[in-house]
């Protein structure tokens, strides 16, 4: 039962990291939903420039690895711009990392939202127009409520993905659960036990979120009713 002693003694440090992981995840999830909504509406707008910008943003963030993006923004960018001096060397890495995470996941959310809106039957729009609604009203009262129903399951999935992706903050020196656990391993040399604990903790929160996705999916089966 030595393993339990090691886990027990390292628990406070790892849990303090878990709290940071949850904090970063929540901020990133809020950020990515806002970014995703705005970018999706831009992609569906009638103004060509807006469409072009949003498409470029999505493709850029989807076609490069998140870890590279994080290194680029947090480590690379400050070497040509005085970002550490503007935001402070303690705050900038966290800010840069969260914003990058939000943008990256936001690119995926953009596609989820866009697909949700496009998935609403054309007849719905025509019906709205025929009872005299304008474009904004159609969006607000007819299209978006139906689209949101479809979006919720993949959005919850994306939230789970975001939690997993916070582990990529460890290599760039941001303190979260993985980073904390690695420092504990450096002191105790009990890699197996500590990583086991970390894996179980991640499993618990991500599995819970994934189950939430499955549950909402069952509740919101739009088509099958």
């Amino acid at each position, binding site marked *: 039962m030595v393993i*339990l002693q090691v886990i027990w003694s390292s628990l406070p440090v790892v849990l303090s990291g878990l709290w940071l992981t949850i904090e970063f995840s929540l901020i990133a999830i809020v950020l990515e939903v806002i970014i995703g909504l705005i970018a999706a509406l831009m992609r569906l707008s009638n103004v060509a420039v807006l469409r072009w910008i949003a498409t470029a943003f999505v493709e850029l963030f989807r076609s490069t690895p998140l870890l590279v993006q994080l290194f680029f923004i947090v*480590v690379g960018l400050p070497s040509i711009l005085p970002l*550490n001096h503007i935001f402070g*060397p303690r705050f900038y890495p966290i800010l840069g990392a969260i914003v990058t995470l939000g943008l990256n996941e936001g690119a995926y959310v953009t596609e989820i939202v866009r697909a949700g809106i496009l998935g609403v039957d054309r007849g719905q729009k025509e019906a709205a127009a025929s009872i005299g609604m304008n474009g904004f009203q159609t969006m607000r009262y007819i299209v978006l409520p139906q689209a949101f129903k479809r979006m919720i399951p993949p959005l919850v999935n994306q939230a789970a993905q975001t939690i997993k992706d916070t582990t990529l903050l*460890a290599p760039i020196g941001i303190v979260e659960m993985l980073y904390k656990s690695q420092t504990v391993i450096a002191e105790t040399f009990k890699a197996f036990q500590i990583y086991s604990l970390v894996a179980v903790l991640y499993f618990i929160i991500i599995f819970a979120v994934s*189950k939430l996705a499955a549950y909402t999916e069952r509740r919101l089966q739009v088509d099958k009713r």
Partner: protein
Amino acid sequence: MTKRRILGFLVVILCLSAFLVGCGSSKGTSDKSSGGGSSSTGGNKSSNTILVGADTTFPPFESEKNGTVTGFDIEMIKAIAKKEGLKVEQIKTMPFDGIIPALQGDQVDVAVAGITIKTSRMETVDFSNAYYKSGLSILVKKDSGINSLDDLKGKLVATKKATSSVDFLKSHGFKDANIKQYDDINTAYQTLESGGADAVVFDNPVNINFMNSHDDVHIVGGLLTGEYYGIAVTKDKPELLKKINDGLKAIQDDGTYAKLFDKYLGGDKNGLVNDVKAPKDVALDDE
């Protein structure tokens, strides 16, 4: 979520935990296979030629540029060989992990790779007298006004994750929040360059290597810890060990040795060993 689903979830967690507890008691040991040296030409060598093993991924001590192996250690061993009338037949490059096994297996006679003299290593190979004093040092921007470890109190220090530098800083009262740890030391240097940290505390030779290519940084406060590098020699050749020691003494006396510091270490003389330091007196006790 029905009751059954929650129950299923708990069962999964319990199974995982049980598996972990079950595994926790088993202990595995793995032995490292020796790294790749090229085919051994041992056996029929005349007594005045030597085969030298080196790991070329440790500039400025050893590095490989366009196929030629150069560096502080390489030039030093060649100078020693010349003094003693030995001929360096070949420099075999191999990963650091493979060096000690190669000496044991007589694939090479001597090895230079910035090898720290440690008691555990002395059981399997012989060491020459110490030729370099290494340890942790502080690298800062020249205009930072930081001149010692005390000046770093409360400032941000970058280093490589989970290395002895972290232990050192923690034992000297640095808080976790003031130590930025990266998976790769180069990221720590980048962070220093871009103002994300006030200093890098790391192995002095590595700091020197960065300093050699960057004009805006310098090393302050001398060595914070001490360990010594020695030339490793196979236990089968005590007479060769004596020759290496004599040669080392000779190049120390005639100034060749000191010149290497100017050529390869940017004039950083923190590591200069002036006198004869026997390996048993300076070995790092790691047992």
